């Protein structure tokens, strides 16, 4: 029979992987909406407003799913990870509470104004609401990345009788990995959204529909990716240096390095054999590993054999997930920079290039998920790296049968929800950015001297 801990881990991995897709998408989308509304306020072009309302509808559905699957997360720490909450609640709880106080309320409240307030508030106020929602998504990212980074690189605490006590909140919040991982996540979310916007715009261009709107979306996405994709590669590289310093076992797993060596090769592909502690079918580039991981040709990288087998993370998942993530990152860069060349030559509308964007539409989501697999599986066997083991973090009084039941329920319900979300999003895509509602003249009756479309 399955053990409760394995089931709890599967459940957490499943519900958080499902959840992260939606906030990651809506972080970027909220900022895209703020950009579009600002553009509309400046230009007052109808097609910009129509595009705003199109993406607003997609935002509403995605945000809704993000909210309801997020509530599950905030209770999961208590239901399945009581050991973690008891031990680390003193530190992680306040960070999550700050997220609720500074971000969740703001997002939720101004979302209402954003979705339903078009006819009730002035255009300026409406724009303010959009900006508040966008700001809320970023503040939320700040806190959740701080909490997660603290679990990766704990700092500013002491342990008494197996319980973490915060000593220095500045050190807790701005723990060693936080300022690397925060921009990495924010840029990942932005890229994820940019590829959806670019992909959907490419689809309309291929279909010859909504051309003015589609070009606006497509060119914005292309220009954005061309700047942000290289930036993300630089941030990712800095994150890697930080991992080498703070989580050497994770880095060894990512690179499938067994022996501690200098002048390590870069393993492009291999089949890591954890039992035999070696790589099969390895395709190595000499010295490149040291250059990338340490920024010097003879830098030393720790191998997994330096760690007791009980302290090693699984190797295959971080190893492969990392390669998928990095591969996609460079594919994004190539696609965008090639696009710049085509833009300059005036051949951006070529069908194969638009189709490439269509194919790359899910690339952000895949890179994001694989990136999280690297971060979280690479942290094992710890829940708080080097201090608290995952095995000590579960709820001891929840029977495995209950966890099995909840796991099955979550899988069934989330697949159902995912199916419906996909279905409704496809329907919205089919309809496309049609004419948005004009502001009704409902207020003017009470004020006969005011103009029909005057701002209130």
């Amino acid at each position, binding site marked *: 029979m399955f053990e409760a801990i394995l089931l709890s881990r599967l459940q957490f991995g499943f519900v958080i992987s499902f959840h992260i897709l939606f906030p990651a998408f809506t972080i970027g989308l909220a900022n895209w909406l703020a950009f579009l509304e600002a553009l509309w306020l400046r230009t007052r072009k109808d097609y910009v407003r129509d595009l705003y309302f199109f993406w607003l*509808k997609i935002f509403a*559905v995605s945000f*809704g*799913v993000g*909210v*309801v699957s997020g*509530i*599950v997360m*905030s*209770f999961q*720490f*208590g*239901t*399945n990870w*009581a*050991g973690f*909450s*008891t031990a680390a*609640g*003193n*530190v992680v*709880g*306040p960070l*999550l*509470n*700050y997220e*609720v*106080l500074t971000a*969740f*309320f*703001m997002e*939720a*409240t*101004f979302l*209402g*104004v954003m*979705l*339903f*307030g*078009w006819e*009730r*508030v002035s255009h300026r106020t409406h724009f303010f609401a959009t900006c508040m929602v966008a700001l809320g998504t970023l503040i939320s990212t700040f806190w959740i990345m701080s909490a997660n980074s603290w679990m990766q690189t704990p700092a500013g605490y002491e342990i008494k009788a197996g319980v973490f*006590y*915060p000593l220095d909140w500045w050190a807790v919040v701005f723990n060693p990995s936080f300022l690397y991982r925060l921009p990495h996540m924010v840029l990942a979310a932005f890229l994820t959204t940019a590829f959806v916007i670019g992909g959907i715009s490419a689809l309309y261009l291929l279909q010859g529909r909504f051309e003015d709107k589609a070009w606006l979306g497509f060119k914005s996405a292309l220009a954005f990716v061309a700047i942000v994709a290289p930036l993300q590669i630089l941030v990712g590289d800095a994150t890697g240096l930080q991992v080498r310093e703070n989580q050497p076992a994770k880095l060894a797993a990512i690179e499938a390095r067994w022996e501690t060596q200098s002048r390590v090769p870069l393993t492009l592909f291999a089949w890591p054999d954890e039992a035999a502690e070696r790589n099969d079918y390895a395709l190595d580039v000499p010295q490149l590993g040291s250059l990338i991981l340490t920024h010097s040709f003879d830098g030393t990288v720790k191998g997994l054999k330096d760690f007791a087998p009980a302290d090693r993370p699984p190797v295959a998942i971080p190893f492969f997930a990392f390669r998928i993530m990095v591969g996609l990152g460079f594919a994004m860069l190539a696609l965008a920079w090639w696009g710049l060349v085509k833009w300059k030559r005036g051949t951006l509308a070529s069908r194969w290039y638009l189709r490439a964007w269509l194919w790359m539409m899910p690339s952000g989501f895949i890179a994001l998920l694989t990136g999280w697999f690297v971060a979280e599986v690479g942290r094992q066997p710890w829940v708080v790296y080097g201090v608290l083991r995952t095995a000590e973090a579960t*709820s*001891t*009084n*929840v029977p495995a*049968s*209950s966890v099995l*039941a*909840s796991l099955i*329920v979550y899988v069934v*319900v989330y697949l159902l*929800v995912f199916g*419906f979300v996909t279905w*409704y999003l496809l*329907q*919205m895509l089919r309809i496309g950015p049609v004419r948005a*509602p004009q502001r009704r003249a409902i207020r003017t009756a009470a004020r006969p001297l005011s103009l029909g479309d005057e701002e209130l």
Partner: protein
Amino acid sequence: MTAEHVLPVVWYLIIGFAVLMYVLLDGFVLGIGILTPFADDDAQRDHMMNTAAPIWDGNETWLVMGGAGLMAAFPRAYSIVLSALYLPMLAMLIALIFRGIAFEFRFKARRSRWVWGVAFNVGSTIATFMQGLILGAVVEGMPLQGGKYVHEAAFAWFSPFSMLTGVALVFGYALLGATWLILKTDGRLQRIAFDLTRPLMLGVIAFMLLVSSWLPFLDPRLMTRWFTWPSFLYLSPVPVLATLNAALLWRAVLRNEELQPFMLSLCFFVLGFLGLVSGIWPNIVPPTLTIWQAASPPSSQGFVLVGALFMIPAVLAYTAYSYRVFRGKVAADSGYHH
């Protein structure tokens, strides 16, 4: 008076406030969901949902605030209660998922529209019942041994009392929902809400009496608290005010008042909440775990308190702003965002 002594009391008040805000605000939204079967047709059901569509998300956030606040300020209580009530928590969360996405999906759907109508109704009802059950199970008490909940059984929360509080809350939220609809709608739908209010009130009063008379028998210490001098003196206003409140609410409905029934229903809940909390104080997990034993250290509670003191007024201010933006009757044809 040290920080160790004062901060847990402050946090007890803050979390109590968050839970109360949740019960009041999401209470009426869940109440609308419970009452959808009483609507004549789908147009009325749309109308009911539209009265809450712009604000339900903010209302539900108070639940997250309660959960995250509990984890930050009383991590031991958070881990004991949530893991002990594993299955009711699961049921509540799943029900809230269906209730929440119904808001978004119902207005996008065509053929599957009825599915989301049912999801809204069933989701709201189950979420409410589970919340009542969880409340009942906590009030009834979770005996601890060596700092851990003694029962390992998956169904230890099942008891006549927790079932009673579950059903009681369904009636309570439905009353909030009906009086909200009186406030926000007119015509036929408002009439339906008026007609529902009095039977619901009778139900709520009956359940309040049942729960109140059961409470002292759960734990002898509760008996002493309610029926000895001088605590009797402090507590006696609660039942007196509740009786007065019931009478005023009855009269307001008879007179077809629009705002008063909702406000008085909210007061009713506040009184009921005070009654329950005063019964378990100073425990956070009855019968024995006190707020001081469950508290996180002053460094944790103090850190979040700074944020809470600034942010809770701000949250209340923009919540009030959003209710002001969406004030007044909601027209029957006011569409969802499209």
